[in-house]
């Protein structure tokens, strides 16, 4: 049999149902009635015991959303979403307020264990207190703000962070406890009117993380949140807001897994980052939502708005993402380079297999002087998937000395998938210097055979070649995530070739 034919046959036999995290935890949940109306918005706001100004903010967003239409420009196809046929709020019923891990529903902890999420490990790390002067051990700590469905169940490391003056808590709490900060920054990067999905999120967001790092503080640990959709038919609308004040530094990790589902699930998160003068934010994501089964049925619809504002001079925002899941990914983590000498970075690995559709990229908007940006995108398409890089690099008239370097590489596995690159480049300033490189290649049967002749299985060979392909981006991930991401990449390509 010809090599190509063999690959084609194998691709046809892909079993996307290998999805490792498809299980449902049996816990009672507290749901809003199906459908979306002002009442739904009021219900959510009341559930969160929100102040009046927050409800008003939500309602304003809701009213605006009613006037908007769903965008259709992305290279993704899906059946029309009936927004009245979804639940907009779901929370595990808290039996009581929890103050330590031991008080959390063991079912929930078990779920995290299955996912291999180190809540316990975090507690263990906590036990291994570094001796005075051993700063390195402390650096390895990860604080976890665990989001189970829509509500933050456990928040760890809070005290230690408080000592450093860092605020890290569910955004629902921040709305009550730090209203001034929230009022000042919420919606200041992604306004409620921004786009259909972000506006929807503004109306009905359930929870998410809030981080504030005060001036001159280097956050003493990596911050991490794990999201997981658990309730049937529940849209997920996280809202995350991270502020690094002057001279502050924070690194935030986000990881997602979701259980197997027949119905499509809508997920429309908004993440806002604000970096003031000399501040730096590093935001890393490993996304592994349920991609749908081998027939392309089910899977998460992931419509995310992530944007960082380099508001201050010499500020820096860096996005790193490893996207392996979701039936549909619509996601463009972007940087507004407002401050002079500010810098934006985007490092992305987007893998699609089965019937997945990915339309992802970034926007680098150069407004300040001598602003720089760098985009490294690695797209890998297998099975019958479609993988699109869509990116915008633009320099404003006043953005003298703007610099961008973009490299987009696509790798095709098999001959029934597609890779597309759609770069938009605009320079309204003659001193701007933009470079764009793009390559598309097919995974070479000869290279695979070379590896296999040395004893590797087909899957090991694909894993090795792909990990080599994405190496430049993997290197950008914090150590804790790099290993996990490497494994995830191999898992998500299982069965993609003969």
């Amino acid at each position, binding site marked *: 049999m010809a090599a190509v034919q063999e690959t084609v046959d194998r691709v046809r036999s892909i079993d996307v149902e290998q999805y490792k995290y498809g299980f449902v935890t049996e816990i009672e949940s507290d749901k809003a009635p199906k459908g979306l109306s002002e009442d739904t918005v009021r219900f959510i706001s009341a559930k969160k015991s929100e102040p009046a100004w927050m409800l008003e903010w939500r309602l304003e967003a809701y009213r605006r959303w009613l006037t908007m239409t769903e965008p259709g420009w992305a290279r993704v196809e899906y059946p029309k979403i009936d927004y009245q046929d979804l639940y907009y709020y779901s929370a595990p019923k808290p039996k009581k307020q929890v103050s330590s891990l031991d008080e959390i529903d063991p079912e929930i902890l078990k779920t995290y264990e299955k996912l291999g999420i180190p809540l316990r490990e975090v507690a263990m790390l906590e036990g291994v207190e570094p001796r005075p002067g051993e700063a390195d051990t402390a650096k390895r700590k990860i604080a976890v703000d665990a989001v189970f469905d829509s509500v933050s169940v456990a928040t760890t490391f809070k005290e230690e962070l408080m000592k450093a003056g860092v605020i890290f808590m569910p955004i629902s709490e921040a709305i009550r406890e730090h209203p001034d900060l929230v009022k000042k920054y919420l919606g200041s990067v992604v306004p409620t009117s921004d786009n259909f999905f972000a506006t929807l999120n503004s109306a009905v967001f359930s929870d998410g993380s809030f981080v504030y790092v005060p001036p001159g503080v280097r956050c003493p640990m990596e911050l991490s949140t794990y999201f997981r959709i658990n309730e049937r038919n529940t849209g997920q609308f996280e809202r995350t807001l991270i502020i690094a004040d002057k001279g502050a530094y924070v690194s935030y990790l986000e990881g997602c897994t979701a259980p197997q589902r027949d119905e499509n699930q809508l997920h429309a998160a908004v993440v806002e980052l604000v970096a003031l003068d000399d501040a730096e934010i590093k935001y890393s994501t490993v996304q592994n939502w349920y991609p749908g089964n081998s027939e392309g049925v089910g899977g998460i619809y992931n419509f995310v708005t992530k944007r960082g504002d380099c508001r201050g001079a010499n500020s820096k925002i860096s996005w790193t993402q490893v996207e392996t899941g979701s039936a549909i990914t619509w996601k463009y983590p972007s940087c507004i380079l407002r401050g002079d000498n500010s810098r934006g970075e985007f490092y992305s690995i987007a893998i699609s297999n089965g019937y997945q559709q990915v339309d992802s990229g970034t926007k680098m908007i150069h407004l300040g002087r001598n602003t720089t940006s760098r985009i490294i995108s690695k797209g890998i398409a297998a099975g019958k998937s479609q993988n699109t890089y869509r990116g915008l690099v633009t320099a404003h008239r006043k953005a003298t000395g703007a610099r961008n370097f973009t490299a987009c590489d696509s790798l095709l596995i098999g001959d029934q998938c597609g890779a597309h690159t759609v770069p938009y480049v605009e320079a309204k300033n003659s001193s701007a210097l933009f470079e764009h490189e793009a390559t598309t290649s097919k995974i070479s049967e000869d290279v695979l055979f070379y*590896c296999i002749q040395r*004893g590797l299985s087909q899957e090991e060979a694909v894993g*090795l070649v792909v990990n*080599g392909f994405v190496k430049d981006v993997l290197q950008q991930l914090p150590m804790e995530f790099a290993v996990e991401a490497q494994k995830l990449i191999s898992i998500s390509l299982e069965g993609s070739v003969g």
Partner: protein
Amino acid sequence: MTALLEIRNLQAEIAGRKILDGLDLTVNAGEVHAIMGPNGAGKSTLSYVLAGKPGYEVTGGEVLFKGEDLLAMPPDERAAKGVFLAFQYPLEIPGVATMTFLRAALNAQRRKRGEEELSSPDLVKRVRETAKNLGIDAEMLRRPLNVGFSGGEKKRNETMQMALLEPLLCVLDETDSGLDIDALKIVANGVNQLRSKERGMIVITHYQRLLDYIVPDIVHVLSAGRIVRTGGKELALELESTGYAQYQSEAA
């Protein structure tokens, strides 16, 4: 005694075109066989069929490796059982350090044989020693496999892999192509270090000059998909002066 490799009446085609047409060959442990022949005789096809490359279809005959049906094994299993192919054109793998590749290959083979994987320190030590014996700079181990390597470096890297994986049957496909005389000597020296009484080798070459440095026990002439003549090492010298013309006409 069971032969290391026994090929009987092997027929193979690629994309419907017959390339091997009744090839017989027996290689015993400890022997080095040279296979010479004109372009298009089927030399590389033989090496790919032995290694199990997809796209090469065996339509008849059999191949026994230590008495077992080699053609029934998937290619990675053949590798784990001790079949090694030194490629004429070694492939490049961007982003994968040579050391990473060697680790993956060695441990994959060990897992398949039910052996324990080598720990990182053991592996690094073993690779470094092997590299040193072959005069390979440790810096090469950090470079992505074969990316930007010179022809000589690629072939030396193949030899290093062969030394590290300790195969029973080495098939060297046109190892001399793309090498100047100095590089050729170095690679041949590496191959000669691997000659042993447990190991058999098939050295495929178009030119006699490689056989000045890797001296074979037996020389075969392959033409139109079958062995048409077999002799001692002097046969190679004869071919050097007469060329392949007579074999091509015989086949035609």
